[in-house]
């Protein structure tokens, strides 16, 4: 036990009055155990004893607990909120993690070892060894077709997804398309339907056969699940209604000029809207002339 991290923990504790990485050892151990189980059963929701955190439930407590259970003093930590490193929530989380662990705060995607994110997967392709931790508000993809939690779990256990397919079918016949924009349901490893957290459709294909590890944490709902590297992840689609990502025909980022990234609308003072990269790190890279070689 007497290793670098213990020593560092002692030092940090002196600074902050908290144990290393905020959580007590037993909490971290339990979360890690749940993470291992989640990795072993891709897409399966593993319950865990979600702790009280110094931020409110619904503000990323699930993702934060995973991050704090994994982070070491030598990690480079990046936190983004809808792609943005500089949002107040992202900055606060990042500061908390750094302060209680001594980990380095970074913005550049390729420099990060751990990335905690709300509702986006970075534009730059993640490599082996990088871990993306997604904050999840509603971990149960069947929530909207089956109100009973017990029944939904039975459906997962038996791979009984007819209700989910029926919901997609109803969407198509009544609206002409699947209405799910963010958080489009995916089939993981041909076995479990999974809520990918409210990432845009743009990011869905990135989950398929990725080199990196994806971890999903839902603090309020007390669930952890995972997509290990090189796992088959496919959006639910009908043969004659294939899944499609968002299109930004002709639009480009007003800041960096990129036409190949996920754009969000940003209002201006005169009431008009402009398109801007959702991924601030990618936008900075493009602006500074650094070519992002690794794309998804």
């Amino acid at each position, binding site marked *: 036990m007497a290793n670098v991290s213990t020593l560092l923990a002692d030092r940090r504790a002196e600074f902050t009055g908290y144990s290393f990485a905020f959580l007590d050892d037993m909490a971290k151990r339990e979360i890690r155990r749940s993470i291992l189980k989640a990795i072993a059963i891709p897409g399966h929701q593993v319950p865990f004893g979600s702790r009280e955190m110094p931020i409110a439930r619904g503000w990323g407590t699930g993702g934060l607990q995973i991050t704090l259970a994994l982070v070491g003093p030598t990690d480079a930590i990046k936190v983004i909120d809808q792609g943005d490193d500089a949002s107040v929530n992202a900055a606060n989380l990042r500061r908390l993690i750094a302060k209680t662990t001594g980990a380095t705060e970074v913005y550049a995607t390729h420099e990060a070892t751990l990335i905690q994110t709300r509702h986006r997967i970075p534009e730059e392709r993640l490599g082996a060894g990088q871990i993306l931790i997604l904050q999840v508000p509603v971990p149960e993809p069947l929530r909207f077709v089956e109100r009973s939690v017990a029944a939904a779990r*039975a459906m997962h256990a*038996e*791979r*009984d997804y*007819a*209700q989910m*397919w*029926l919901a997609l*079918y*109803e969407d*198509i*016949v*009544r609206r002409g398309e699947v209405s799910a924009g963010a958080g489009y349901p995916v089939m993981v490893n041909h076995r479990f339907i999974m809520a990918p957290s409210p990432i845009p459709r743009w990011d869905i294909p990135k989950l398929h056969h990725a080199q990196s590890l994806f971890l999903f944490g839902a603090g309020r709902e007390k669930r952890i699940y995972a997509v290990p590297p090189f796992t088959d992840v496919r959006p639910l689609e*009908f*043969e*004659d*209604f294939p899944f499609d990502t968002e299109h930004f025909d002709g639009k480009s980022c007003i800041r960096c000029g990129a036409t190949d990234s996920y754009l969000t609308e940003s209002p201006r003072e005169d009431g008009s809207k402009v398109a801007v990269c959702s991924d601030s790190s990618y936008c900075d890279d493009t602006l500074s002339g650094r070519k992002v070689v690794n794309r998804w």
Partner: protein
Amino acid sequence: MVEPLEPLLRVRNLTKVYTSGNRRVLACEDVSFDVYPGEVLGIVGESGSGKSTVLQCLYQDVAPTSGQAFLASYHNGEHSIFEADRRERRELRAHQISMVYQNPRMGLNLMVTAGGNVAGRLLAADWRRVSDIRDKASDYLQRTEVPLDRMDDFPAFFSGGMQQRVQIAKALANGPELVLLDELTTGLDVSVQAGVLDLVRDIQHTTGMTAIIVSHDLGVIRLLTDRVLVMKDGHVVESGLTDQILEDPQHPYTQLLVNCVTA
């Protein structure tokens, strides 16, 4: 010589006892029968005779107390469907056995469109082309005379007769081997009853479906069934060809039943 046709379903000693506290209520006891492919079997009796319980057990809405039911397509008829686990039970419902309830609200998902209700069974059977599913669903809805312009409406707002038609379409979609029909006209107006009966008869005629029809209405039994079981107080008191049961009933209870109607 007759081809040695195997029964599609063999029910043996089916018994269901409800217990509440130390009170035991016998719903049905030692019910045994065979159903052959293409045959329509009727179960007739007064309310409380246990006839609906037999269907509920076969559809596995209710767990029998004892007895077996062998479906030819389930483990080659070597194991009782009552031994099925949850997943197998779902498979049985998706592919082999379907049910039309007396109350359409039991068999329909009212939060889903009429077409979606029919599509549900196809999706459960892994259909993954919207156009195919829609074609099939509209085919069945058309066959059950549900106007196609109502296909994408919610059945909650349909009349009882129309709901029953949607339920029948749902039960028939995906071509189940065995259809269970429980008092399918009881809740309907007399004028609507006729239409629903004609529909089932036509489908039986054109598809050769195998079915078990439970009814207390001898008119329904006469019109739709080849053979009949007569139940009283949870027991089968008599069985035979439908015309034989109606014209030459042997058991005192059946004689009473037949005479009550024709009187």
